[in-house]
């Protein structure tokens, strides 16, 4: 068992780190304050392949693996969690649905521009009345000749403010419950698709996250992903992979926060000495780094399992469950280490704490993670 990264992964990690430091870090504070994501930055992320890592070169993707994607998510999220989720929703949710379940025509038409740097995708599953209970979909898709007519509202659709392609889910047969949900590829230009205002949030404020309403949106039958009734399966499979991204995001948020706190404690003097010389500070930092490392290794394990085509779902759920709680605890302790300055918006640490919370909620709450994990253990 080799815990070392390969040379390729190391160089990719180096590239992600440099990009994040030079391109993302200088914009992070302003984007958070203004709640507007920089489209220029988005274009750069597309240009250097950050938005198409685990997809085949056959479709214009980077040809990388999920471990490389996890490394990217961590390095980016160290600087800015909003950039992390922008990449993650596009990659693990939107693109992977089409990659896993699309026909050859759908992949050429929709996956290619998503992974080759041209277009951005988003994923519309959650509704005002259907969160963890994703099966409670109320958005309807009714077959009418050679197309479906879609009506309904989705909420918390990340990237929807600037996405070109919307992978979304709607009920085609209510009587079948979860087996009555179908998946569709909707284009931004299709009449009736309306993206609302950015929803005001505690954290990841720069990320675009809006309510999207579908009013008699006519979608050709060719745009349905998989068969009618495959929707729930497609949605859940995407979320399984998405959890690896979120776990990596949580690791990045925590490591970024700890790196800042360490810089601070090495400089800050109280009671005549640097606070890093107090054993309490040293012990606290040791605990925090230990927990970050543990979460990182769990994330790498889940990513490697996916790359080896093993059943990675429970491992990914464990990584997300652990990493998200860890990130919240680490960030809270880092704010504490930095005292009053940790509470000021001038420093990035309070943003890390606000950003960390969502990792326990989205792409499956921590409670849902426990459902997945206990379900896989066959104890009931």
């Amino acid at each position, binding site marked *: 068992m080799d815990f070392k990264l390969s040379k390729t992964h190391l*160089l*990719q990690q180096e*590239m992600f780190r440099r990009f994040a430091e030079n391109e993302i870090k200088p914009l992070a504070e302003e984007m958070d304050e203004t709640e507007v994501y920089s489209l220029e930055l988005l274009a750069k992320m597309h240009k250097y*392949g950050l938005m198409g*890592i685990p997809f085949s070169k056959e479709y214009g993707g*980077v*040809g*990388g693996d999920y471990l490389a994607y996890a490394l990217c998510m961590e390095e980016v999220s160290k600087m800015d969690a909003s950039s992390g989720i922008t990449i993650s929703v596009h990659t693990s949710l939107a693109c992977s649905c089409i990659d896993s379940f699309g026909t050859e025509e759908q992949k050429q038409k929709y996956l290619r521009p998503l992974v080759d740097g041209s277009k951005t995708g988003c994923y519309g599953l959650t509704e005002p009345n259907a969160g963890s209970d994703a099966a409670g979909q109320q958005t309807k898709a009714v077959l009418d000749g050679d197309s479906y007519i879609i009506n309904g509202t989705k909420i918390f659709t990340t990237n929807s403010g600037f996405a070109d392609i919307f992978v979304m889910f709607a009920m085609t047969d209510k009587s079948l419950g979860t087996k009555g949900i179908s998946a569709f590829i909707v284009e931004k230009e299709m009449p009736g698709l309306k993206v609302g205002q950015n929803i005001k949030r505690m954290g990841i404020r720069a990320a675009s996250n809006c309510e999207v309403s579908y009013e008699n949106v006519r979608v050709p039958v060719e745009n349905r992903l998989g068969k009618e009734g495959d929707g729930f399966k497609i949605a859940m499979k995407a979320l399984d992979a998405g959890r690896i991204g979120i776990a990596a995001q949580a690791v990045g948020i925590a490591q970024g926060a700890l790196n800042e706190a360490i810089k601070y404690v090495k400089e800050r003097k109280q009671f005549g000495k640097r606070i890093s010389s107090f054993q309490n500070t040293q012990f606290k930092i040791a605990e925090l780094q230990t927990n970050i490392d543990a979460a990182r290794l769990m994330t790498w394990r889940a990513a490697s399992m996916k790359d080896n085509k093993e059943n990675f779902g429970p491992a990914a759920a464990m990584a997300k469950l652990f990493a998200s709680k860890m990130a919240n605890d680490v960030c809270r302790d880092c704010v504490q280490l930095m005292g009053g300055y940790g509470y000021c918006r001038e420093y990035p640490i309070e943003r890390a704490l606000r950003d960390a919370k969502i990792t326990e909620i989205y792409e499956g709450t921590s409670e849902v993670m426990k459902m997945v994990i206990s379900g896989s253990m066959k104890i009931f």
Partner: protein
Amino acid sequence: MKIVVCIKQVPDTNEVKLDPKTNTLIREGVPSIINHDDKSGIEAALNLKEQVGGTVTVVCMGPPQADVALREALAMGCDEAYLLSAREFGGSDTYATATIIATALQKIGYDLVITGRQAIDGDTAQVGPQIAESLGIPQISYAEEITVEGKDTLVVRRQYEDRYHIIEVKLPCLLTALAELADPRYMHAGGIIDAYAKDITVLGFDDLKDSLNPEHIGLKGSPTNVFKSFTKQAKGAGTILTDVSPDEAVTEIIKKLEEKYII
């Protein structure tokens, strides 16, 4: 156009600390990077290739660890890479280094050679011009801008402290690149995978010995020898002249310059 870029792997001087006891640089554990000027050279070469077509070959003389610098250049978009590495090359000063690189370039072939202006660890700015002399080709150093005119002519803006020259030069020639010449692109995430899938050609002493005089390489073949590297000691606070007229100030300053034999 066949463009060959010569690069050096150097310690990242942002991370380098000074040993307070010996006043020399601590190199252990310091990450290595492609020298800044050289990286701009790579970017300029890639831009030229995009404009007029051709290939970009990257060459690096160094120990086996320099492999990662070449992979980075490949991941930026260079087409092929050569590592000049051998025990016999170790300890080479700028003259010996330039001799070895020039010999390799003759074997590899080129229309345009681009080197960095100077390396951040050696700071001599000698190797580029020495390579040009060795190859007997024209050189323009401190290149700030390059324009292609026709099939085999370049127009180069050459930087000076207080002015610049616009110089026309025919290929083949050598240019030394300033960091300002081009803003280097990042590696592409997929380019990194391609970079590690390629073979880097290693040229050792045996590959070049037919054209290489062993007396001009390595430590023995180096006319110069780095005895010691150190940072300058901080100067004193200096003297501030207050309440003096401009004429009095000038007299004082001239007096001091004369005392120090500066004029």
